[in-house]
């Protein structure tokens, strides 16, 4: 059932972005397992594509984004080049961080992506600070700050949300609640009523949404982003989702039932749900398949290009550490 005024163009764009994110991560997984070319850990967001696509669709290109170790989807959705991202995962010179960061420190400042973060919760007060900087500079950008449910048990969650609230900063906090803190169920380690209630207790406007319904996420995000842009007050979006893969690509997730996981995937995959929505709106299966094929082709090409790129020059290990006392002049 689709409403008569359904926006097919927006719905299609949301599906395209989710398919691109999934295709990117499937290729990254192949690069890691099949090709043995991703040497460090990567954290896949398979099953969580709707919050990345839905929230970031509400942003302008000059808005700012901070993310986590599970940040490929957010980075891609903000407009980063998948070839440069893939090259970064492979540690190549053409990577968006010159091969120095890898998956967990992926960043593309040209599209306002101020960095993924390898430390859970650390980006929360940094993102509040980026919004603080915007307030000092006096422009109308906003910041979106993604983190997982595991992050709500670290101090920076409290300090960062409190900071944004008392200084009245234009930041949207997005908690992607995938139910898992690395390899432990978050519910078993979390007191109280959870992420949204904690944000509410600090006076933030705080909304929860079915995070696997990309249309619902996009609707809520647009509403919250508009409110933040106008009011310059922070808000909190809690997206309930499910991590389909293990913590890292090499984590078989043996701590949970394979059957339960498969049942969740079969019943509630955000991409399959959006395909059904679009079919209900009159799109043919062929059209939807073409979207998937185009995404796959794009990411296969991104991986091929990344493989062909050179590793960074050895001497770049001393570049961009610091100007004063730079190791380019004296590392010891």
């Amino acid at each position: 059932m689709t409403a008569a005024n359904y926006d097919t163009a927006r719905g299609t764009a949301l599906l395209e972005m989710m398919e691109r994110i999934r295709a990117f991560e499937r290729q990254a997984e192949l690069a890691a397992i099949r090709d043995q070319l991703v040497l460090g850990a990567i954290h896949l967001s398979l099953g969580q594509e709707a919050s990345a696509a839905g929230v970031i669709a509400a942003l302008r290109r000059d808005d700012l984004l901070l993310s986590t170790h599970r940040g490929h989807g957010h980075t891609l959705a903000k407009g980063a080049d998948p070839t440069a991202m893939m090259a970064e995962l492979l540690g190549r010179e053409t990577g968006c961080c010159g091969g120095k960061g890898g998956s967990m420190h992926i960043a593309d400042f040209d599209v306002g992506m101020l960095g993924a973060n390898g430390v859970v919760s650390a980006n929360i007060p940094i993102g509040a600070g980026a919004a603080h900087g915007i307030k000092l500079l006096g422009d109308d950008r906003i910041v979106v700050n993604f983190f997982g449910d595991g992050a709500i048990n670290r101090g920076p969650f409290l300090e960062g949300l409190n900071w944004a609230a008392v200084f009245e900063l234009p930041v949207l906090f997005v908690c992607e609640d995938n139910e898992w803190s690395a390899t432990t169920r978050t519910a078993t380690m979390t007191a109280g009523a959870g992420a949204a209630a904690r944000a509410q207790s600090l006076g933030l406007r705080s909304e929860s949404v079915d995070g696997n319904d990309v249309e619902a996420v996009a609707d809520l995000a647009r509403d919250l982003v508009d409110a933040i842009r106008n009011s310059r007050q922070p808000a909190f979006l809690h997206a309930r989702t499910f991590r389909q893969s293990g913590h890292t690509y090499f984590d078989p997730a043996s701590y949970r039932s394979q059957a339960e996981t498969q049942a969740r995937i079969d019943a509630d995959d955000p991409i399959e749900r959006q395909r059904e929505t679009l079919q209900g709106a009159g799109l043919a299966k062929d059209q939807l398949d073409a979207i998937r094929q185009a995404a796959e082709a794009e990411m296969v090409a991104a991986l091929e290009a990344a493989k062909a790129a050179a590793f960074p020059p050895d001497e770049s290990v001393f570049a961009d550490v610091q100007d004063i006392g730079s190791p380019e002049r004296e590392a010891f």
Partner: protein
Amino acid sequence: MTRSMTYAGAALEALREAMQADPKVWCVGEDLGRGGVFGQYKGLREEFGELRVSDAPISEAAIMAAAFGAAMVGTRPVVEMRFADFALCATDELINQIAKARFMFGGQSRAPMVIRKPMGMWRSSAAQHSQSLESWYAHIPGLVVAVPSTPQDNYAMMKAAIAADDPVVYLEHKNIWANEGPVDPDETYSWGTARQRHAGSDLTIVSWSDCANRAELAAKTLAAEGIGAEVIDLRSLWPWDKQAVLDSVARSGRLLVAHESVAVGGFGAEVVATVCERLGGAFKAAPRRLGAPRSLIPYAPNLEDQLRVTTDMIVTTARELCQ
């Protein structure tokens, strides 16, 4: 024109002038609105307003992280940590985030920040308000480490720190806020250059922060006894003025490093090791270090005094070296 200023007042004047010159410079920390815990921000709120002289919740991690976020979008924050000891609450933010951002993002970002951490022993402040941890920061790639000891240097180095595009850990010694001295605003500071605090050719004394003041006093006593000590105040520990130290020891053949912080694993070990590696055969006596014993800073004044590196200790050790 040279004026007399206190150590605290010199940094305040430098900060005020930097804020007047650049609207992107701002400061943030607990109690800054009323002038800061030690009055280092006095009058700035009235002159620049609450946006640019911002109070903060008692959230050291958020103060550090938020200032970093604001630095990444183009502002130039001066961060007040109140006590160097409290800055340990913001260790991830400084070490894992600020020091690494430019490098791990492949040069896309900068963190032009001054991180002020009042350090050191004054009287009876006990184990959590007295530490000197400068060697920790010297160990972290990405950070610049400033340890000014005089009003002149606290003026010129604060100016240089605010102008720097790197994160500068700026360690002011709490015991010398009220020290007065001449400040020539036209004297510029260049990172990694030491200052000769006393001339002499019999031994080289290397020091920094308030201990450099004690080393200078010691050198005056030694001079009266006919022992010529060259006192080198490093002023910054990263980068540090290896050449000044090497040149001096090449002349004197004797090296003493004196610092208030714990001797074990302290920056004095780095100085001695470097000189030994470069000038192995040049010594007339084995190099010495003076630092605090590896114990904890107590409350009772008599106990506290046992951990201090005093002027007398520097004099005595220098005499031993020259025997």
